[in-house]
């Protein structure tokens, strides 16, 4: 077993853990977005509430959700371990900082930390409320999470936090998406241009649509 632990705790192994968990989170983002877009349906949240009820009660979804929390945690813990290693490798910095790479790629840690702060606000606002708060039940036997969301997104500062956080996520993904494939050793003249294109498109479209929801609901509140 020591070879397995050796591999996963080497600098290359820890990067593979970052890439695996990162790609899982990317998949999660896509699913999460498709669910959330139901908020814009204009049916006073009926379809969204039924969907949210299903997502919180279905046993398979529960397993996936535990997996999701575990992967986020692993992504964060691994990033902290890597970051400490990287800082130790350059105890004394330069007077003139190097700039031969993209800004996002040099600031993945800061971007990730901002995403973490957003996640805490986000989970407190909706996940915690749905699970442990007192959310009213609708006449179609689903908790009215839509009302909670609507109330939150009627406040400008709340909308602002969401929009800024999605910009942060966009930058994290602009490097992270394609970086994960390089970490897996997937660098090929045929596939790398496709990966770069899909990554750039994902990094723009998904956070933009996520940001659209609070903006839209604020303008219609």
């Amino acid at each position, binding site marked *: 077993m*020591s*070879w397995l632990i*050796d*591999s996963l705790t*080497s*600098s*290359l192994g*820890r*990067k*593979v853990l970052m890439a695996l968990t990162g790609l899982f989170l990317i998949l999660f983002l896509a699913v999460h977005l498709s669910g959330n877009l139901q908020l814009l349906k204009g049916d006073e949240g009926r379809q969204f509430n039924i969907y949210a009820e299903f997502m919180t009660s279905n046993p398979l979804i529960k397993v996936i959700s535990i997996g999701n929390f575990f992967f986020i945690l692993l992504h964060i813990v691994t990033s902290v371990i*890597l970051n400490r*290693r*990287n800082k*130790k*490798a*350059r*105890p*004394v*910095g*330069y*007077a*003139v*900082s*190097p*700039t*031969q*790479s*993209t800004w996002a*790629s*040099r600031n*993945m840690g800061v971007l990730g930390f901002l995403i973490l702060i957003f996640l805490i606000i986000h989970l407190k606002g909706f996940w915690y409320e749905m699970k442990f708060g007192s959310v009213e039940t609708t006449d179609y036997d689903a908790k009215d999470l839509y009302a909670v969301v609507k109330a939150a997104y009627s406040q400008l500062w709340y909308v602002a936090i969401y929009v800024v956080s999605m910009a942060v996520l966009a930058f994290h993904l602009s*490097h992270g998406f*394609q*970086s994960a494939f*390089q*970490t*897996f*050793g*997937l*660098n090929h003249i045929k596939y790398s241009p496709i990966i770069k294109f899909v990554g750039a498109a994902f990094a723009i479209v998904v956070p933009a649509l996520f940001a659209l929801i609070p903006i839209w609901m604020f303008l219609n509140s």
Partner: protein
Amino acid sequence: MNLTLKVWRQKNASDKGGFETYNVSDISPDMSFLEMFDVLNEQLVREGKDPVHFDHDCREGICGMCSMYINGKPHGPKDAITTCQLHMRSFNDGDTITVEPWRAAPFPIIKDLVTDRSSFDRIIQAGGYISVNTGGVPDANEIPIPKKVADEAMDAATCIGCGACVAACKNASAMLFVSAKVSQLALLPQGQVEKKSRVENMVAQMDDEGFGACTNTGACSAVCPKEISLTNIARLNREYFAAKSSSDNV
């Protein structure tokens, strides 16, 4: 040309060090960056001061000894050359140039701009030998190797081990260097016999030396005087996990 130089001076590894500012005048634009430093040092010697210590050997871009971090970029503003190949015509009259040593814990500073890069040698040593029969020279075309593969191996083999990749990397990672050294052998039939142990041992040594991990920023390849490509890092990732999951080394 008249220039102002901000140069890192440090007596030894334990000294804290700091920048000193020097003025040099009548520098020919045809001089190399190192020749400009020679002029500075003659000036310092005449003034009875300690000359600036810097590494150099071949002064033609093949030994990898020269190592100056110039205005925020290893080997200076031009691409695909070493410091010794950098000419003063790449700067303007009146410029202020900041010169720092490579900054990485596995490259401790010996004095001024000179760093100890023997951690690279220990990584190469960890890679071990390749099994090649001694005796008569084999026929040139006895082992068929596609031209494209030979080119790729040769491209990787152009790495001169200067350490610019480590110097430019925000994590002081040695991935580009190690990936070039692994690739040049992994690509060729002669490198197959010890291929798995080689990559396992070289990566283990790289981590032991205290280099950072790779964030795939690409700064390394951007500053590499030999333009070693990031595809080598992808290959290193593949080789490492293929070896780890299939070798007999438990």
